[in-house]
């Protein structure tokens, strides 16, 4: 979870990702960010997030991203 927040903060130092919700709906994360994020996650956790998992629900908050990663790691 903290690692996710770290990655996110690298992308946007000015945002507090602990509390921020609706990252996608409010256009805080754009498609470039999401792609960088997925690359980082792939590096750090060794999980592959595929295109079909890129939905607003999965990327709207650090929490939901973490949930996605956990689910994929289990799978």
């Amino acid at each position, binding site marked *: 979870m903290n690692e996710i927040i770290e990655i996110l903060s690298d992308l946007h130092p000015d945002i507090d990702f602990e509390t921020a919700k609706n990252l996608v709906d409010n*256009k805080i994360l*754009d*498609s*470039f960010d*999401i*792609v*960088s994020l*997925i*690359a980082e996650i*792939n*590096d750090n956790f060794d999980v*592959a*997030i*595929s*295109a*079909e998992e*890129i939905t607003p629900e999965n990327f709207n908050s650090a929490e939901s991203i973490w949930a996605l990663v956990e689910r994929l790691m289990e*799978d």
Partner: protein
Amino acid sequence: MLFTSYEFLFFVLATCVLYYVIPKKWQWMLLLAASYVFYFLAGASYLPYIFVTTVSTYLIARKITSLQAVVDAYIKEHKKELSREERKEYKAKEKKKQWRLLLLCLFINIGILAVLKYTNFAIANVNSMLTTFGSTAKLDFVDFVLPMGISFYTFQSMGYLIDVYRGKYEAEKNPFRFALFVSFFPQLVQGPISRFDDLAKTLYEEHKFNSATVASGLQRILWGYFKKMVIADRMLVAVNTLIKGPEEYQGAFVFAGMLFYALELYADFTGGIDITIGIAETLGIKVTENFHRPYFSKNIKEYWNRWHMTMGSWFTDYIFYPISVCQPMLKLSKFSRKHFGEIIGKRIPVYLSSFVVWFTTGIWHGASWNFIVWGLGNFVVIMISQELEPLYRMFHKKFPKADKALWFKIFRVGRTILLMSSLRMFDCYRDVPLTFKMFGTMFTTWNWNVLWNGQLLELGLEVKDYIILFLGMMLVFTVSMLQRSGSVRGKIRTLAFPVRVIIWYGLFLVVLLFGAYGVGYDASQFIYNQF
């Protein structure tokens, strides 16, 4: 049937009346029938193409869904016996089957689109290559029909198919309902490109006649006609004169043409979409918005999120993401990070997939180098902007107030418009070299006095036309400003009845009297029908 033809108005009227007269459970069937009649009237020879797309997509999506059901059932049943690895392996194997089906369907449908749209472009390129190598042989051009709206309905169907494959929703069971999704007539000619999960429900639902909804829909249609007929079709006269006479109209004329074209395109395309969405609304159906006041964008990237939005998100979801997060791409990224450093490695997925997206976007708009160069031009601008991000941050740190200042906002909006307009010159002029040449004349031919010495009056528009255009644009601008705080139609609804009547009747009169239609004006087709 042009949107601006009497036939179309009559067709819509007849459809709407019938729609609310017949039993509600037949409503969607009526729409299907109307859509096919509409398509038939546009050209009987188009029917086989949309039919093939509908049937192939329907069947393959159904097959994929049923395969998925089998997988789910199997896993559920054998949950205990199977290990995680076994489950994974089984799933992967099954997924592969679905993947092949998906590929087959994409191949058929994108294939049809590509062959019809790009064969002659390919032949032209081969021919010029042959000439370069000194051969006198020439391939003959082929004479394919290009079915109306093929780019739109193909994209819409393929989006549906990929969603089904991704398990976002199940395939539609009723083939006729699916056929309606593909062919829904208001959006057939020029989009928006709807998603199945957005459109389907509202499309098949039963809709009770509701005078408020119908009135609201009609108002939107009227607004669309205003933009289209009063502004776009009038502007078109001058635009055509300018771009058809590149020898004569250079320098400042190019600049004027650029802005005129930006105006025309905006009014034409958003007006058309207003009509589309308005017709749907009149029928009680909600179609996704396609524009969000694009010319108010701060930068090009934002612009592309607010202009033709349904196409943008289509390219993002079905091309950009799949390419940028696929395994080979991630590996490539890792590899480059190791060998070329962090900075380059990180950018590779984004850059490569953006390149593909913009190339595709370009060629989707038309089979010519003009559009490809135009698409890649957007790519270059966006990437430069991306790379300069640190500089912007520096700038804003230094001048923290600039962001709130009006002059800075105006500067940004102006810059967006100028950038977009200059890129769009590629779809005005005959070929790429000519476009560059004309662009150059803006800086070499110093004839700014033509803007006020009366020469603008020789382009086919008179003083009164410019006045109408100016007032029309002021109205559009005002409405856009008002829209920032919510629907303008909603605001008008709160006014007193006589005021409302005057507003809408007034707008109707303006379209009736100042619309550029009829003898003397040739209603131009929606620019966007062509894609």
